[in-house]
């Protein structure tokens, strides 16, 4: 069965101190219903991606919590956890539900409330998605990507400057997105002079701690934008067991499957949202998906033409990516697909890439232990 994207809504991402987890959930659900002109009774089920409410906030059974927010309609609600790919995995499962003919309209929600907690607590909570050995070594998420970054830079003879271009590009696009956490451009010099979090990664190589919720409605009724494919694959949780330290195999496998089932190739993709939790991540993902050849990512990042930002194909991370749009972890995977929907339906306003018909969204969990790749087409 063919499944289409009927509509998308996202809250602003950022430090939303006046909004609770419940407020974010309600805003996103009401927002997407309004956007699509649907009522709650038209929705067959809700699929929710959330990572941290249980760990940080002792807040579980989101299904019943959301039902209560929705005035106890009793609708089936399922919650998925796959670290930073919780949103992507929720979308994947909602799609299977739709394809199985279980309902006309299915709502996918991604949500995360992170800024109620101090950085140390959030750092520890995110580190739950590292292996036990890594946790006991005091590794953090920035640390895991830092290990990959140093290995990559050394192997291919690049410097931290090659990484910094990714952040400059994503902040440029983020400056055009009114829902982004940071809506301002940054310079190469600012990135390079920002303090280290985990060497060689600096604060401006890193996505921020954000709050936010995003929602999509999938429908079996025809719309302009079809879900051409959505595939997922796994790798080891630990960096210690990875085949190559600079290769994201889960991304590669999910990407290959997604290209195959959509019947498209990497060069057909015109817009893409990729998981740039750290600058190095965008480079490794671009290589894993076959947009760039292995090892040329550092050079390609540097070659980005800021004077003609919409001229490359694919145009990557028009939302601002995780770096600039923000990274409320459970929401990110849904926002990425939503951004591709906006691009393909001509609703991306100031950051619209003209005439695009095929787009891809790639979501990563942990240091690469899981990935979801989704392709939408007009």
């Amino acid at each position, binding site marked *: 069965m063919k499944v289409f994207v009927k509509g998308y809504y996202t809250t602003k991402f950022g430090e939303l101190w006046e909004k609770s987890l419940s407020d974010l959930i309600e805003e996103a659900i009401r927002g997407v219903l309004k956007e699509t002109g649907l009522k709650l009774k038209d929705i067959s089920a809700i699929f929710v991606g959330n990572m941290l409410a249980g760990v940080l906030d002792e807040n579980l059974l989101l299904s019943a919590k959301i039902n209560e927010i929705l005035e106890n309609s009793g609708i089936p609600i399922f919650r998925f956890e796959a670290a930073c790919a919780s949103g992507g995995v929720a979308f994947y499962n909602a799609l299977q539900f739709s394809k199985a003919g279980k309902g006309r309209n299915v709502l996918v929600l991604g949500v995360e409330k992170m800024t109620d907690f101090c*950085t*140390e*607590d959030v*750092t*520890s909570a995110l*580190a739950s998605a590292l292996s*036990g*050995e*890594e*946790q*006991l*070594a*005091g*590794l*953090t998420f*920035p*640390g895991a990507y*830092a*290990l*990959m970054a*140093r*290995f990559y830079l*050394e192997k291919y003879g690049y410097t931290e400057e090659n990484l910094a271009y990714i952040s400059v590009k994503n902040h440029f696009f983020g400056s055009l997105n009114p829902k982004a956490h940071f809506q301002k451009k940054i310079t190469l010099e600012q990135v390079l002079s920002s*303090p*280290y*979090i*985990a*060497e*060689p*990664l600096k604060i401006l190589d890193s996505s921020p701690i954000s709050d936010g919720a995003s929602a999509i409605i999938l429908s079996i009724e025809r719309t302009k934008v079809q879900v051409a494919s959505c595939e997922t694959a796994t790798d080891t949780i*630990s*960096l*210690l*067991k990875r085949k190559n*330290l600079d290769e994201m195999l889960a991304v590669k496998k999910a990407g290959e499957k997604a290209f195959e089932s959509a019947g498209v190739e990497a060069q057909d993709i015109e817009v893409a949202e990729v998981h740039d939790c750290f600058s190095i991540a965008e480079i490794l993902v671009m290589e894993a998906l076959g947009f760039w050849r292995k090892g040329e990512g550092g050079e390609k990042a540097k070659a980005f033409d800021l004077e003609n930002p919409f001229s490359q194909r694919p145009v990557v991370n028009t939302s601002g990516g995780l770096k600039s749009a923000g990274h409320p972890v459970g929401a990110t995977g849904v926002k990425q697909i939503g951004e591709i929907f906006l691009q393909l339906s001509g609703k991306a306003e100031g950051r619209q890439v003209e005439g695009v018909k095929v787009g891809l969204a790639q979501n990563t969990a942990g240091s690469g232990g899981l990935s979801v790749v989704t392709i939408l087409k007009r």
Partner: protein
Amino acid sequence: MKSTKSAVKIWRRQKVVREKLGWEGRIISFTKINVAGKRFSGQTPYYVVLAENNKGERMMAQLSEGYTPELGAKVKAVLRRVFRPKKGELVVYGVKFVLV
């Protein structure tokens, strides 16, 4: 890191730690952590090192205080206290690296 509060879990892990002591390998990557989680925040900055031996086996551990890592340098696994326990908590021992 709540899980390290379980005495039984610590006891179970200690048996694995014994097997790792004396392991040697070369540094294939390392990072200096400036922002840590709550268990390690009092110890920043510290180095986390990823090493590999000639059989292709890898081990990850913190570099013991006072050493500075370099890619390719040889490290050895030694027994160290993993982090400072809070009052009343068990002391957790584990593996750290020293340069050899």
